[in-house]
């Protein structure tokens, strides 16, 4: 996997500090996200994986620190630049976060409608293409999100995240709540799509299978920082009790991680 590890950094986080009142989540966190890589983020519950994701996409305002996306610092952007920069990334929220009053296809068209003035038939064509890419069964394109299963909602949400052809994709626990077969299929889909579209992916997960199968690099969050950010083999060799427990526990063996691999 080492062949596409480049030094072209898309997202650069330096000295990030986030806090909710007196409760500090991250302190002095540094992280790089390299172009074309699928970056996994792991960590125990409450270590702030989702908070880090939300800080990078701007849903949470950090207390201090710099977040650069594509070489531009978030804090220096004007409102207009900030709005436009949102076109460059897609986000898949944990529970899909589809708009419940719109059909699936209309959900995919929302970002297109917001940023462009396209004719309806082109938007229909694009929405259907994106849904096909996300492996969504097309006969359900006119259904409402409440009529769908969890796995279908994730696929629909992935299609919406891809609607604007982002270079950067944020996935928050993409396989949570899916059955193992559905999760494996979704992992495969994410991997294939990201490699064929050349996307950079920031993937928050608990799922060891996903880490092993999909991620080029794994960052471990703990003690309010990134403990290590490296390919799987190096992370597994890293000397930290949580990391050892996580990668060498019974569930890790079940996921096919070999001891001292």
């Amino acid at each position: 996997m080492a062949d596409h590890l480049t030094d072209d950094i898309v997202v650069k986080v330096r000295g990030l500090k986030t806090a909710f009142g007196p409760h500090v989540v991250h302190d002095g966190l540094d992280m790089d996200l390299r172009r074309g890589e699928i970056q996994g983020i792991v960590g125990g519950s409450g270590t702030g994986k989702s908070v880090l994701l939300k800080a990078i996409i701007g849903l949470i305002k950090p207390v201090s620190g710099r977040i650069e996306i594509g070489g531009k610092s978030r804090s220096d952007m004007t409102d207009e630049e900030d709005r436009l920069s949102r076109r460059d990334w897609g986000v898949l929220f944990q529970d899909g976060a589809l708009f419940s009053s719109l059909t699936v296809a209309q959900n995919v068209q929302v970002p297109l409608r917001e940023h462009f003035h396209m004719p309806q038939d082109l938007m229909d064509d694009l929405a259907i293409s994106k849904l096909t890419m996300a492996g969504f069964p097309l006969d359900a394109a006119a259904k409402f999100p409440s009529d769908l299963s969890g796995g279908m909602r994730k696929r629909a949400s992935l299609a919406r995240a891809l609607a604007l052809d982002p270079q950067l994709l944020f996935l928050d626990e993409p396989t949570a709540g899916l059955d193992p077969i559905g999760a494996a299929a979704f992992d495969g889909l994410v991997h294939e799509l990201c490699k064929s579209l050349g996307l950079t992916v920031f993937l928050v997960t608990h799922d060891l299978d996903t880490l092993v199968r999909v991620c080029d690099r794994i960052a471990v969050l703990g003690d309010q920082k990134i403990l290590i950010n490296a390919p799987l083999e190096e992370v597994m060799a890293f000397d930290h009790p949580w990391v050892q427990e996580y990668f060498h526990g019974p569930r890790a063996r079940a996921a096919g991680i070999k001891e001292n691999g």
Partner: protein
Amino acid sequence: MSDFLLDNAFVKVERCENSATVHLAGDWIIDNAVAIDSLMASVKLAAGDNPMFDCSAIGALDTTGAVLIRRFSDGCEHSDGAPLVNIQARHTKLLEVISCSPPPVSTEPDQIAWYLLPLLQAGTATVGAFRSGGRLLGFLGLVLMRLMGALFDLGRVRLVPVVHQMEVIGLQSMGIVGLISFLIGAVMVNQGAIQLAKFGADIFVIDMLGIGHLRELGILLTAIIIAGRSGSAFTAQIGSMVLHEEVDAMKTLGMDPIDVLVLPRLMAITICLPLLAFYADVVGVAGGALMAWIQLDITPANFLIYFREVITIDHYWVGIIKAPFFAAVIATTGCYNGLRVQGSADDLGARTTRSVVQSIFLVIVLDALFAIFFTSVGL
């Protein structure tokens, strides 16, 4: 011998003897999608039959661009979509992902013709009204069954939620109920006095206030305020619990949602509404007395003497007896609509609106029936 039939930044159409080559150029990305899509018709016209698409000069390409290329190739007159040639290595994967054109499917929910829509809506509304009337009646029966059961088995009554609901429904609405009753009492005397003064009968404004406010307005206004304030809250609270599957969780834990959610609210509102109605009566009459003092120079002492003389206790009872019935209607409609929420946040909003409209409507209908009843028994 060749020339360019169409020549711009994205597409050049080159026509040879019997076939055309469409040269694609520039950045085929989402930002240019609208411009590229608008070229489609002219390209189709210029390319004629059996064109080929030359992709060698394309700059950047994304999935939207790939979809556009597929649209162009599908759109042209060719047996099986026009072929793409000279695809650059870096674009092959992307074009493969998008290669097969998906079948046309609808992206919006099915819609019927506009001229049939009013008929459909009238029909659905009528059927819906009967159905929901029936269901509401059924729900009322179910609640009464559980209530009777709870009265014989007092351990099932959840006292803490009842008291909490009493605080929310009763205590916290005293401000708004008091204010509105006071103003209505005052306005009634103010307007009544002007009209009755024309007959020199302005003292009868006290009769009017007493009868009007105690029999009808006091309780009706209170019920409408509570329907808007607490009925909607019932629906929203219970409805969002349904959406989060909390009600299902309750059922699996052996708790009856009617016992846990409906009965405390029903009991609390049945206790509170008569009390609030009494309070509204007092404050409304006080407002009237104040206005009588200001406008007609009737001192509060004289007002009271005259009021006790002309207003019998019957008027008060006629008003207050309606309160528990209104309370039952408001609680039942609110809780029923809450429990029937399904699917989305949209439905929760629609149900909340419907709950308030239904309960106000039912309260007024019930009030009219009471008026007929009391007139016919001579009260």
